[in-house]
């Protein structure tokens, strides 16, 4: 399912003294089945943009084509369920959304809302509990007995269980330790490979370099760049000017002043290759 934004603007509390532009004339198109990352510093409009994907926010002007639906300022609040089944968002610190008696019930909450039968919902809940790397035994525990990292996984399983075509995640690994973080990223990559679109809001440029097919860079509510990672980080002065970080590998490469790089190495493996080929010359 492709996503298309046409001249989308969003204004917070219009007409009040607190009026603020959340999105400013945003245009882009994302291809099916891609791994997209959205970057930009805090308050740049990333979260506002993301909440437009399933009409939690509706544009103040412009239109959005997503999952076979067109969202305009006039779109009614009713009948958005179908859209949200196809496009779902995992917010930052999603463990804050858990509420059911048991882990399984909590994961099954979304599927049930989207029309799965009680039994089918529990089946997919069990299936996804394991897919996110948790012991099936905790299924009958209360979600509030789990550790923070486990709760996070349960929350994410609760969204992935109904398999939205487009899965949006806001910093899903924030605050996790490195090992848990890596497992989580692998989970999303596999999900994308299985034929879904994954949209990741992140500050981690190493993740951008390693996983993204497509990068959206936001600043002051504007989309200031939309490109593949290679091109995003190609111009170091541009990156600096917009207060973005570089991937660790490319930062290291910057110190190797007398090396000639064919292209800016964004991952550690690329960096090793480039160093090797330089030394061979």
């Amino acid at each position, binding site marked *: 399912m492709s996503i298309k934004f046409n001249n989308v603007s969003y204004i917070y509390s219009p007409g009040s003294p607190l009026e603020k532009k959340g999105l400013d004339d945003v245009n882009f198109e994302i291809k099916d089945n891609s791994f997209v990352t959205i970057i930009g510093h805090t308050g740049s409009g990333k979260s506002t943009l993301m909440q437009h994907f399933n009409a939690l926010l509706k544009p103040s002007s412009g239109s959005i084509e997503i999952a076979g639906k067109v969202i305009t300022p006039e779109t009614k609040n009713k009948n958005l*369920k179908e859209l949200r089944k196809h496009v779902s968002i995992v917010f930052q610190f999603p463990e804050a959304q858990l509420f059911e008696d048991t882990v399984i019930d909590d994961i099954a909450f979304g599927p049930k809302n989207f029309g799965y039968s009680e039994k089918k919902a529990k089946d997919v809940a069990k299936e996804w509990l394991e897919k996110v790397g948790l012991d099936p035994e905790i299924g009958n525990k209360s979600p509030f007995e789990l550790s923070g990292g486990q709760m996070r996984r349960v929350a994410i399983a609760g*969204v992935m269980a109904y398999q939205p075509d487009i899965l949006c995640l806001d910093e899903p690994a924030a605050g996790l330790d490195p090992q848990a973080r890596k497992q989580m990223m692998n989970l999303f990559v596999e999900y994308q490979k299985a034929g879904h679109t994954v949209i990741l809001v992140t500050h981690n440029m190493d993740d951008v370099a390693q996983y993204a097919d497509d990068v959206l860079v936001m600043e002051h509510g504007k989309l200031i760049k939309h490109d593949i990672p290679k091109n995003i980080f190609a111009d170091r002065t541009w990156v600096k000017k917009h207060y973005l970080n570089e991937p660790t590998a490319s930062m290291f490469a910057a110190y190797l002043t007398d090396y000639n790089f064919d292209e800016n190495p964004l991952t550690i493996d690329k960096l090793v290759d480039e160093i090797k080929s330089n030394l061979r010359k």
Partner: protein
Amino acid sequence: MDPRGKLLATIFFVCIIFLANNWLSYSIICLFSLLAVWATKLKPKVFWDGVKPLIGLIFFTSLLQLFFTSGGEVYWKWWIFTCSSYGITNAVYIFIRFTLIILISTVMTVTTMPLEIADAMEWILTPLKIFKVPVDKIALVMSIALRFVPTLFDETFKIMNAQRSRGADFNNGGLIKRAKAIAPLLVPLFINSLQTAVDLSTAMEARGYRGSEGRTRYRVLNWSKYDLYNLGYFVILTVLLLIFRTH
């Protein structure tokens, strides 16, 4: 102006408005209220916004009063409803009283920060210490509530959005369905509160909080000459009302 003075004045106003009982005294209190509104130098819209949500209720109440009050000259009568001269005056008085009370409370709230109002409330509660009312604890609870309203507002919307993404529907469906929809919102808020209470009380102790004894205050309230003017204003109003009301 000191928030304590303003708060006392607002409470006092509600009491003296009852002194008005004829057209002249009502005119005086209207004039004084409008002067107070004018003194804030704020746009009329601010005050209109204060009255607007209640305008329906004010009209409705006045109308009921109109039709259910008898006495004086009767103009019209049907079943249990009457329209009399007494009823009309009464309804108009209630309309004025209602509107003025809202106007004066609005003057108070738009010119004073919530934090200051809370400080003033705490000050007013202080005498209750004589009756062993734990005013310090009440003050602590007040300040924490005040601190967390904006934060929890954001949190509430975040949770609602997260559950909406999971297909929860807060706005449609029958009674039972809606009553059930409270849980996905309330439980996370509650769990979050328990955690916050643990974290915050730990942080407070780590920062040396050991009860209210021996504490000093960063925020101090100071009486100024404007509070004196305020007082004078209300004394004059009260005297005028006492003179011109029907005895």
